[in-house]
Structures are given as C-alpha cells and as structure tokens.
C-alpha cells in the first residue's frame, strides 16, 4: 500500500491511558506525553505532532486501547471532534437474535423394548434430540455412556470421554451454551466433581441434563445403590443461589420418560436438570415403551451458536456490580418460584384413605409399593406417596393427604436426606406437626418390602386409632409345575 494512502493517527484524549507504548513505537519521535492533565481521566494523554508524522501506522499497533489511537478520517479538522464520526449510533451491527423452534417428529407404534435403566435413559436422550454426550466412566452409570459411544456416531452425533467430570460438565456448558441439548451419565463421586460447573451453568442460565446413578458413599464408598446425593441435588448444586429440577424415576420406563422431560425442562427454564437414579435402577432391565414422537431441536434465541443471528449474545455468570448481581439473583429466584409452582410431580398410590403414608422414591419406592399392596391385602389403610420431583418437593400433592394420615414413614436407601427434604417442604408449607418415622438402609442395602410391612405394622400397633392387621401372611407358595 503506498504511503500516501495511510492515515495519520487521531486520538480522543479521554480514551488515552497514558501508557506511553506508542511513544516507544514511533520511529519519528512525534508522540510525547502531554503536560496537561485531562479533566475527565486525571491522566496526561499523549499528544501527536502531525506535521512530523509520516503515517507509518506503528503507533496503532502499539496502542492497547481499541478506541485509543485511530486512523484519522480524511479531511478531519484539528478542533473538537464529534465521536459519532468514529462510533456508530448502535454499539453493534449484530441482528436481533431469533429462536429456531424445536420440531416434533411423529414415530410409528413400536413394540415394547427390554432395556436397562441407563440404556432407557440414553434412548430417551436420543429421542429428546440429544446428539452430544460428554462424560467420564464411573460405575454404575457407565453402561449409559457406553451405549451413547456406540449409538451417537451412527447418528452423526458426538461422544466425548472427557479428561474428568470437571471437564465433562464444562463441555456441556459449551454445547448447551451453543443452544443444543447435551447430557452426561455419572455417579455420586463424579457428580460431586461436576458441581462447580453446574453452578456456573445455573448462573449463566445454560441448559443440560445430568443423570446421576447414585451409589454408596461417602468417599469412594461402593458401587451399591444408595440415595445419598439427595442433599447435593436439592440443596448443594455448587456454590451460590442454585436450584434445579430434580427428577427421581423408579423404573426403566421412567428413566426414558423423565430423561425426555428433563431436556424439555432444561430448555424451558434455561437451567440444568438433574435426574437421580440409584445403582439398582441404573442396572435393572425392564419393559420400556417408546413415545409417539421424537424431537428435532432448534436453536433458542439466547444461544451463543456461532452464527450471524446469535452474534449479539453473551453467556456469563459474572455480574461484577453488586446491584447487577442482586438483580440477577432476583431473576433466578423468580425462575425457581415458577419451577416450584409448576413442576411438582408425585405419584399417589392408594393414598386417598390412607392412615399411614409411605414416602419413597427410586427403587425403594417399588419395594414400598409392594409393601403397600401387601398391607392393603391385610386390611391396613396404607398408601405410597412417591415424589417424582425431589426439588421442587411435591408438597402440593402431599398436604391434602395429611388431614387424614396419622403419620408418614420415609423409606430410603440413605441417611435421611429424603426425610430432610420432606420436613423442609412441610415446614415451608406451614403444615402442622405430622408424625414422621423412617426406615433406612445404607451402603448398597435396600429396604425390602417385608421390612416396610413390618415397620408399618409396628407403627400402627403403637397407634390404637389406626386400623391394623394382627398377623402377617406367609410367603409360602406351593410349586406345582404343570
């Protein structure tokens, strides 16, 4: 380019931080520090002797400020300059982002499949439009990841085994940030490692689905089924003011259905959704019906997708001004309130006339349902209250039952974390004192149906106003092959 075409520099003195790097860069020594203090910045900006300047341009390359030394527009006078000559009326030329909506593709009617829990969840994710999986192997969730590793390439999707759970959650952050559904399978120790990223996702309002097949703890614990992450998923999703809808399936069918729901909720609320199973549920194989439609995901308007429409977007969890961060938390609280109002889910089984309610989720809820059947057969008025969302706790469904119920028996494979959620929910609801008893097993041991039956009978016996059977029936069965 001929020298005559080059522009000489121009500077708004208020945008000069007086670092002096241009002075060093100028081969003609035509830049020097001013001796006058700029009234706006309190600094002494550089001054340029345009007579000596030969428009070499090296000062532009040396100036660290985007709006510092600028090429001087042709014909610009020496006096005051209107900034609009340099800066347009809008901060950006980016278009207003638009939503590309999801489409729902109808499916033919399929025969029921026989799938293990983690596989059912993986199939649910594929049907929900997830083509990106990021994870780290950990028993007893790994089969889900392995199935994704096998199937995703067949659908031109991506499977990445991350260097750690810490990395995996951040890959979900990036993919979800680009507006696409992505997920992981993990288990308790791995989920602990993901909490940092989940807090960032909640802060930056990025959707993603986490399937945590809970195992025994604390520490390395074991790989048996436990429900000891309820505290984490309901109260401890990383630092700060965080919540996410927590879904608790109890069958392989629900592993599929609730995984699909998890993606829908994640994008509806721009928030992670956690699905908690237990080791048993991850491994158990059962009958699974496929839904009548699948999802082809669009791109939400807020996404940072790396295309023209979405160029103006920002995903960030940093709000450096106190007032901004307070406003952001108020916004999040509003979102949490909507989740509490709209997303409570529970299954009520023979609860209407129940004197005692068994409260259980995941696999223990199946045991509990069997116990309820057996107790009913013995004439006891017992029902099962099964929270399907652990957060928000479905207190709306529970409260009406408390008028009649004499007590609640919380059955869990853990140390009372479900009971804590129940108590907190009742406390928030201002429910009058209700008798709450528990049956707990740990370390991979699950409460069995007969344990629940025995416990309910013992409780009912201690409560003279309750209808209770006097004896248990025998399990003896005559085996008579045809």
């Amino acid at each position, binding site marked *: 380019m001929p020298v005559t075409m080059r522009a000489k520099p121009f500077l708004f003195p*208020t*945008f000069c931080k*007086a670092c002096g790097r241009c*002075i*060093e860069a100028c081969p003609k020594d035509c830049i020097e520090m001013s001796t006058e203090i700029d009234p706006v*910045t309190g600094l002494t900006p550089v001054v340029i002797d345009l007579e000596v300047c030969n428009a070499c341009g090296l000062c532009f*390359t*040396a*100036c*660290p400020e*985007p709006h510092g030394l600028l090429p001087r527009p042709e014909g610009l006078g020496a006096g005051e300059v209107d900034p609009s000559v340099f800066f347009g009326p*809008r*901060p*950006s*030329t980016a278009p207003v982002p638009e939503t590309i909506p999801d489409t729902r593709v109808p*499916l033919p009617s*399929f*025969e029921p*499949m*026989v799938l293990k829990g983690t596989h059912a969840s993986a*199939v649910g994710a*594929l049907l929900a*439009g997830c*083509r990106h999986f*990021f994870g780290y192997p950990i028993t007893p969730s790994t089969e889900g990841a392995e199935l994704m590793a096998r199937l995703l390439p*067949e659908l*031109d999707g*991506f499977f990445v085994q*991350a*260097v750690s759970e*810490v*990395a*995996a959650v*951040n890959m979900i*952050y*990036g*993919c979800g*940030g*680009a507006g*696409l559904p992505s997920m992981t399978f993990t288990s308790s120790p791995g989920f602990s490692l993901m909490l940092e*990223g989940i807090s960032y996702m909640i802060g*930056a309002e990025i959707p993603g689905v986490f399937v945590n097949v809970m195992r025994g703890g604390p520490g390395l614990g074991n790989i048996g089924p436990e429900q000891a992450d309820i505290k984490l998923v309901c109260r401890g999703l990383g630092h700060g003011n965080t919540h996410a809808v927590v879904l608790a399936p109890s069958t392989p069918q629900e592993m599929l259905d609730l995984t699909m729901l998890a993606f829908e909720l994640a994008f509806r609320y721009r928030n992670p959704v956690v699905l908690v199973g237990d080791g048993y549920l991850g491994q*158990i*194989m059962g009958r699974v019906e*496929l839904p009548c439609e699948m999802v082809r*995901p669009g791109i939400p308007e807020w996404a*940072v*997708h790396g*295309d023209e429409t*979405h*160029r103006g977007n*920002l*995903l960030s969890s*940093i709000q450096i001004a106190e007032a901004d961060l307070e406003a952001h938390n108020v916004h999040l609280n509003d979102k949490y309130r909507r989740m509490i109002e709209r997303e409570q889910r529970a299954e009520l089984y023979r609860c209407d006339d129940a004197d005692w309610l068994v409260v259980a989720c995941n696999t223990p809820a*199946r045991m509990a349902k069997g116990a309820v059947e057996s107790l009913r057969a013995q004439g006891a008025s017992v029902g099962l209250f099964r929270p399907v969302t652990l957060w928000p706790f479905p207190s709306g469904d529970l409260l009406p039952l408390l008028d009649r119920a004499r007590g609640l028996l919380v059955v869990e494979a853990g140390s009372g974390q479900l009971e804590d959620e129940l108590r907190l929910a009742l406390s928030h609801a201002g429910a009058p004192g209700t008798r709450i008893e528990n049956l707990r097993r740990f370390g991979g041991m699950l409460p069995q*149906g007969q344990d629940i039956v025995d416990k309910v009978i013992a409780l009912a016996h201690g409560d003279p106003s309750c209808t209770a059977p006097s004896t248990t029936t025998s399990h003896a*069965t005559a*085996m008579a*092959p*045809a």
Partner: protein
Amino acid sequence: MHSAFYDHFARHGHGAGLKGHATHYCPGCGHGLAHKYLAEAITELDVQDRTVAISPVGCAVFLYYYFDVGNTQAAHGRAPAVALGHKLANPSSIVVSYQGDGDLASIGLAEILQVVQMGLPMTFVFINNAIYGMTGGQMAPTTLMGQTTTTSPHGRDRFTGQTLRVAEMIAGLDGPIYVERVALFDRKQRTRAKRAIAKALRLQVENRGLGFVEVLAECPTQLHMTPIEAERWVQEKMVPVFPLGVKKDLTAEPWFTPEAPSFDARRLTRTIHASTEPAPRFGDGFPAHVDEHDVAIKFAGAGGDGAQTIARLTAKSGINEGFDATYIPSYGPESRGGTSYADVHVARREVLSPAAPEPHVLVAFNPPSLEKFGPCVRPGGLVLYDQTVTPEAPRLDPSVQMVGVPFTGIAADLGKVKVKNTVALGAFQAATRLFPADSFLEALRRSMPDDCEMAVLNEEAFRRGAMAFDEPFDEPAN
C-alpha cells in the same frame, strides 16, 4: 470493514462515560494489544458472525465487553472444555479460547491438554505475563525463578515450584499443527504477534487444525513498573526463559467437516433397534401355578457361567408374553470371573420389588451359589443345579424341590461347555413351565440374529436341557 470491537462498550459499567469506550485494563497492559490483533484477524478473515470467544477467569474474563462476537464466559481453567462443547455443537463456528497463565497453565492443565491433544480446528491465545493479575500479584506457574510475588514473597524457588514452559509443552503434543510464542515489547515483536494470532485463526477458518499462540505480555501493575519498564522486563527477563519463535508448524489439509447430526426418525429407531414387529406370544396366561401375581427367580454362578444371559432371556420372554418383567444383575468390579447372580421377576401386572431375596426358583451353576442362595428359596420352591459340578446337594427345607441336571456335562457332550447356560435354561423351562419352550427359543433367536451356528447349537442345548429334566439320567439328589 466493520471492526470486531463494539463501537460502544455497553457491557462495561453499563457503557456509562469513559467506560463506554475504554477498556478495564491497566495502562500498558498486554491484553489490549492481544485483543486488538485478534479483533483485526477476525475482521480480516471475515468470520465475525461465526466467532465464539471464550473468556475464562482472569483479567480477560471481561473480553465480552469489547468483542462484537458470540461470547461465552467460563469458569477458571475450563475454557478449553467449554470451547470444545461450542465447536462440536456447531463445527462451522470459529471458537477462540483466550486464557491467562493461571487459568491455562495451573488450574486448567487437564482441560488444555485434552482439548489441544484432540486437535480440532480451534484457536488458543495464551497470555503469559508471569504473574496473577486479577487476584493481585500472586505467583503463576510461569512466574520466573527468583521472582517475587505476594505468594512467593522471598522469591520463587523449588519449593514454590519451577517455571512452566507452556508453548514447548503444547508443541510436544500430537494435536496442534501450529504453536508459536510471541511477545509485545517492541514493534518487531508486535508485528510477529499480530501475524501469529492471524495464522492461528486462519488455520481454524480453513479447517486445517489447532493453532496455539503464547503471548509474553506485560503486567505493569503487578510488576510495579511503568509500561515501558515492563516491556524491558519481558524482553530481558522473560525471553531468556521463554524463547520466542515457532515451536511447531505442520502443513495440514482441511479435514474437520463433519456431517450434521441426523434427526431422521427411521434412522434413529433403526439405531436403537426399535421394532414395530410384534414378538409372537406362545403362552396362554400367567404362570399362576408358580405364583398368582409375581414369580421371583434367582440365577447364580461364577462369572462366565452365563447366568446373566439366561436371566435376561427369561425377563425378555416374560415381556414378550405380555407381562411385566425385570432383570437385575449383581454387578461390580468382580463381574469378570467372580461370583455372578441375577434376580428376575415376572409379574402379571407390575413388578414391585425387583430383588429376589426369597426366590421361587433358584438356578445354581456351582456349589457355592447353591450353598449361599439355596436356603433363601421359598418353601414349596424349586432349586435347579448343575449336577456335573455338584455331586452332593445340600439339605434344604423339605418342601423345596431339588432338581439336579448335568448342565456342564450335557454342554460338553455338545462340544461347547459355554452353552451350559442354555442347557440350564431348557431344564428351567421344563421344570417350571413358566412359559412354553418356544417362548424362550424365540427370545434366544432374537438375541443373536446373525449367528446361525450358535443359534443351532443353543437350540440343541436348550432341548437337551429340557429332556434331561423330563427324563433324568439319575434320580435327582434330594
């Protein structure tokens, strides 16, 4: 050409006053220069609309104040993982991970190594100023030996760790195709830096590979120097430790052009093996002769006995027959070669407790399994065991029917000990009449549709097992 910088920094202090057009960086900070070269490269390559800039924790966390591109702010050290998520979500996006030395070389070492080694076309700008800027002058992994910082107040020594050379480490990986270390302390270095950043970006735009540029930058504030003194410090102190220049520069053809993910319903359902073909039913009702509502079976043996396979087939048969069924394996690190058992339930309506602590039927492949689970079988139940390996069956509740069938012996006769589980399944069918034999055989055929030889052998094994129960070689031990 429009600049890749915003005209007005509306996100910087809400764009008020000076903040609307000036950065938050201290006077003389190297970040501003690296920003400028990156912005120029984005403009020159005409990729502003496609660019996603990742700004993790560090002074450049506010990069999104300035760059008029898609912006994602990330957690400390995690930018490479976030960048990878973006790139895989939209392979045509141009993803730039802009990281400082604490972020990339300390807390985010695992993430940078994995993502760089993967080598997708992406661009990494690494700002090395040998100190933590944002948190106020603490030691960085790149802090020089002897350098004083607030966390190495007596000068860095072995005990505070030795200086990490990142560009050389990255160049040692197979993933990247271009790695260069540049500086900003004079006009020659700045020209090189500008060119290097543009090249690293171009390699991504052309889908050739991953470019990594380490920029030796000035942090006058934390070095307690004037900007010009800081330039000299970088030149005189840093450059001898961090030699400038190209560390790796490979020629590569464009390669990363993946197909868009498929959302074709037919392709998806084929992939997951969903079938519209109804499985035939052979039975005419629930096996109420075993239990009115819910049959519990335990299959137990050593790992490799095939207990899991026949447990799964039994559950499948139950579902094919129109009932609810579950199969739960004992699982764990011992699953190869150790003990292995599986619980199966078949229920008329719904399986409630999927475990089978007190099964109606136990199928035991070895004496330890028989010892362990035999006593759990319900009164009136059935125990089926491998007579070949169990010469003497334990005494159990007299109401429990004990049936010994030489699973292993029959399988060995057939020339493949591996099919002893199918022998057991045949005997199980004959002994329990849970479902008709065809129901199990159909499940067996569907489980290995492509292996004709094994299918024939398995069917034979199944029949021999059933025959062995119907016409026992010996009187069952009882």
